[in-house]
């Protein structure tokens, strides 16, 4: 945590906003200093208020928490965007004066950290002097270089005053449908730098006297494709923030300012202790190593970007060492991550660290008491220059989720080893899916208006398997645990895309003793648009999840789109139509119901940029499954029979992977022969032993491939990028493979553009800019 020692400014020093007479920056610095010196938040070795008046303390917490949740539920009804109204992509959070979260609502709670970072940025960069912080002000932020996840998450931040003194802040965020990036849709492709990533607003004062400023309203609406949704989202955020501000004022009237201010610090120390208590009660001290990858296949002809240096295939890499310490704090070290890239999948450290709590609230801290205390109990190390801590101010972040969710999946897998070791099997989760595809696009919609879409059906992917049960089918996404695919009728109103079908996606859950939850698929036909484009956004060449303790990863993604389909004629003629079930992509079922001249793209290229779609064209939205747990040979034959009869599993893979002997009766029902299966499974074990090779022997073979530089360009680029940033990672790699001392792998030798690798310029190099740094780097 950096301390911005002195603010050098030519501005006239304003009167203090605090009763103490301190500047906001000095106030925060003192708090950080006390925390550092004592190990307790703000030096609070004792929780005097909580201990002397526990009921009063709980009364304040309950009132604030209930009010935050209530405000979110009320405010979201103002929004028209299905992303907010249907999927609940919003969140409200209350902060103390220093910008540390006290309590938050339900929803996309990653923004506990991102809005807090924006407040800290204002504090650290002397906003109280210019533009000034006054009662009735509103500030808007979506700047990814301050900590925002991606530009489409727009935050409204409102200061809260009592008798002329600042006593806290409230922030509200919504995921808007479009921010005017090069590509339409909230998490688009096509742009490769910040300068095409959509409008970015840096803690700008956008309202005074509780009224949005007219210049802001006029400017912001014309910077996006979907102004009606934009304005209603803005009203949603303002309404929620003002409800919560009223609630705080009421709480202060009832409980007194002294009690409120004590609470606003103690609750964070309480949160810090809460995390260490959970770590001690649920995990095992020691080191856990894990790793995640995701594909960035940009050399393909269907990825059109403005700059030639971005036209390379790369792999994003996130190794992590989790150290659970004997004092029940922990450290997450991401040494060895690959460099940021010329795409929209980069992430700010705050987005990464704050997002982890979204995952942890689903396992380690499943409590309503999530606040910044958990962050104070955690050491994060995100090396500078990596994809999650870029050292260049040009980076784009529109789909930071592409790798954030993938890298978190590995953490879930890692920490589950602890739960398993202690017998808390109910908490084990093999990981999360990479929740995608993101169906996006835009143009002129069925209402004749300029429009952009981002289907949030992906909020309901398959979940990872547990150690005692299967993952849930089409149920959730890690970034928004509400889990809702949205109503077909609402999506058809919002998008010029008719549903030809929506059905569970066969064979997508990772195999295992307990299988991952299955994803689902929807086949959409373009209908009623004037000019329309769409593109794909997901993983295809690689998996993001792995499976746990013998379970397999989930199925990877693939792309299906069809043009010149002849469907409009087939509808007129009453002929058969593709209806949404692509049961086995190798069978090409959809193509049997298309015209002879249809142009079909069916491949692994799951990232594309805008392609023209005419009315009658098709787009398959395939939402992924989750990873499996345990050896598939341990799966109960009854469960396999159910999977077959519900069309969750292809018979071929029931036989090959689960080792069952199956038959189908005349009615089409599958059954598993238990006796033959037991014998067959013994054979599978023998086959494994026969085809397996001693790992040490395999290491020799693989080592030779490394010495021969025998690997695809993208694999070599990934390693070279990580080696450049981490001598430690290079050293460990060489030690493991017993490589000669002089062995190295440099990007320079790969014959691909390496813009940004050597020459870059960090945000901190701008004049009068003091970035907020909350992680070791």
């Amino acid at each position, binding site marked *: 945590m950096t301390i911005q020692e002195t603010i050098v400014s030519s501005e006239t020093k304003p009167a203090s906003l605090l009763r103490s007479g301190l500047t906001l920056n000095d106030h925060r610095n003192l708090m950080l200093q006390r925390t550092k010196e004592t190990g307790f938040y703000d030096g609070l070795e004792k929780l005097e208020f909580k201990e002397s008046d526990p009921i009063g303390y709980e009364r304040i917490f309950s009132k604030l928490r209930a009010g935050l949740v209530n405000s979110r539920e009320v405010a979201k009804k103002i929004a028209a965007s299905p992303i907010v109204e249907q999927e609940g992509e919003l969140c409200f959070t209350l902060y103390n004066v220093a910008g540390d979260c006290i309590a938050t609502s339900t929803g996309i709670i990653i923004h506990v950290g991102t809005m807090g970072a924006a407040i800290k940025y204002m504090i650290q960069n002397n906003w109280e002097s210019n533009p000034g912080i006054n009662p009735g002000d509103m500030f808007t932020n979506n700047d990814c270089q301050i900590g925002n996840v991606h530009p489409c998450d727009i935050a409204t931040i409102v200061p809260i005053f009592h008798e002329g003194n600042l006593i806290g802040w409230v922030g509200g965020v919504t995921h808007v449908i479009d921010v005017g990036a090069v590509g339409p849709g909230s998490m688009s492709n096509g742009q490769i730098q910040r300068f095409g990533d959509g409008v970015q607003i840096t803690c700008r004062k956008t309202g005074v006297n509780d009224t949005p400023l007219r210049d802001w309203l006029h400017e912001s609406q014309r910077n996006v494709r979907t102004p009606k949704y934009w304005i209603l989202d803005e009203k949603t955020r303002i309404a929620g923030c003002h409800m919560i501000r009223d609630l705080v004022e009421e709480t202060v009237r009832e409980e007194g300012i002294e009690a409120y201010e004590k609470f606003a610090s103690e609750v964070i120390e309480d949160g810090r202790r809460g995390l260490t208590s959970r770590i001690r009660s649920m995990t095992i*001290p*020691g080191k856990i190593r894990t790793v995640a990858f995701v594909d960035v296949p940009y050399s393909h002809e269907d990825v059109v970007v403005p700059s030639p240096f971005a036209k390379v295939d790369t792999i994003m890499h996130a190794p992590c060492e989790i150290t659970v310490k004997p004092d029940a704090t922990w450290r997450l070290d991401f040494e060895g991550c690959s460099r940021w890239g010329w795409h929209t999948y980069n992430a700010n450290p705050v987005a990464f660290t704050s997002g982890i709590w979204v995952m942890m609230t689903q396992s380690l801290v499943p409590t309503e008491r999530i606040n910044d205390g958990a962050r104070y109990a955690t050491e994060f190390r995100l090396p500078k220059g990596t994809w999650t801590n870029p050292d260049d101010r040009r980076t784009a972040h529109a789909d930071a989720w592409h790798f954030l969710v993938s890298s978190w999946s590995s953490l879930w897998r890692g920490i589950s080893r602890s739960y398993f070791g202690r017998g808390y099997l*109910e908490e084990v989760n093999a990981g999360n899916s990479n929740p995608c595809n993101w169906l996006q696009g835009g143009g002129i919609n069925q209402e004749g208006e300029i429009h952009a879409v981002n289907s949030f059906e992906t909020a309901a992917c398959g979940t990872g398997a547990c150690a005692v049960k299967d993952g849930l089918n089409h149920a959730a996404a890690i970034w928004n645990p509400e889990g809702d695919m949205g109503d077909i009728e609402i999506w058809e109103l919002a998008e010029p895309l008719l549903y030809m079908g929506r059905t569970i996606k066969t064979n997508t859950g990772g195999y295992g003793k307990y299988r991952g939850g299955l994803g689902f698929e929807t086949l959409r036909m373009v209908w009623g648009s004037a000019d329309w484009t769409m593109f794909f956004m997901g993983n295809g060449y690689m998996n993001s999840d792995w499976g746990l*303790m013998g379970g*397999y990863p989930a199925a990877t993604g693939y792309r299906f789109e069809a043009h010149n389909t002849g469907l409009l004629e087939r509808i007129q003629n009453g002929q058969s139509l593709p209806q949404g079930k692509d049961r086995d992509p190798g069978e090409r079922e959809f193509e049997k119901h298309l015209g002879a001249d249809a142009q079909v793209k069916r491949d692994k290229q799951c990232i594309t940029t805008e392609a023209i779609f005419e009315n009658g064209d098709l787009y398959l939205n395939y939402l992924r499954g989750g990873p499996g747990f345990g050896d598939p040979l341990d799966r109960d034959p009854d469960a396999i029979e159910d999977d077959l009869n519900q069309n969750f599993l292809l018979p071929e893979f029931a036989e090959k992977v689960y080792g069952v002997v199956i038959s189908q009766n005349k009615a089409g029902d599958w059954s598993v022969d238990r006796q033959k299966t037991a014998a067959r499974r013994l054979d599978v074990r023998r086959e494994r032993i026969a085809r397996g090779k001693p*790992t040490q022997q395999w290491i020799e073979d693989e080592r030779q491939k490394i010495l021969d530089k025998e690997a*695809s360009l993208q694999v070599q680029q990934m390693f070279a990028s990580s080696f450049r940033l981490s001598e430690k990672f290079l050293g460990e790699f060489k030690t493991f493979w017993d490589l000669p001392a002089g062995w190295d792998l440099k990007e320079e030798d790969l014959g691909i553009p390496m813009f940004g690798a050597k020459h870059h310029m960090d945000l901190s190099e701008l004049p009068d800019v003091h970035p907020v740094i909350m992680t070791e780097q």
Partner: protein
Amino acid sequence: MSTYTKKQVSDLVKGDLDWDTLHRMLSMPKDKERYSHYISVLQEQVDWDDRIILPLGPHLFLAETGEDKSLVTKCECGYEYGDYQKNWKLNALIYVRDSEEKMQQVYPKLMAPDTGWQVYREYYCPSCGTMHDVEAPTPWYPVIHDFQPDLKAFFDWLDLPAPVNA
């Protein structure tokens, strides 16, 4: 604080626990004595007498073995992978799915990774053929040493005596 019987923990391990109890386990603070019940249940499931210290997977354990009470990683079938501080995978069998043909033995066409980007590495017990782990890294990736527990600190947390060789 909820507490659970050994029978309930046994049902949990078998995957047979009733939903109400499972839900209580999920929603209530954790029961510290779970570890002891769990180890006791697992100990009854294995055919050998070595003391289970820590389960690493459904069929893989960290166990205290022999007269010298050395700590090893051990399969349920009895096969030993060596010192617990070493990566057990290095003494397992490995099978790498590094071609489209091998990948299509486990997933349909288009639904498995492209092996130019990612491979599956399956680790089998050399004795019983149990698949203890599947890694899904890029080619060239070092074998992951998943977990190195600090046993002394762990047993301190549990308020139990640590294994002598921890």
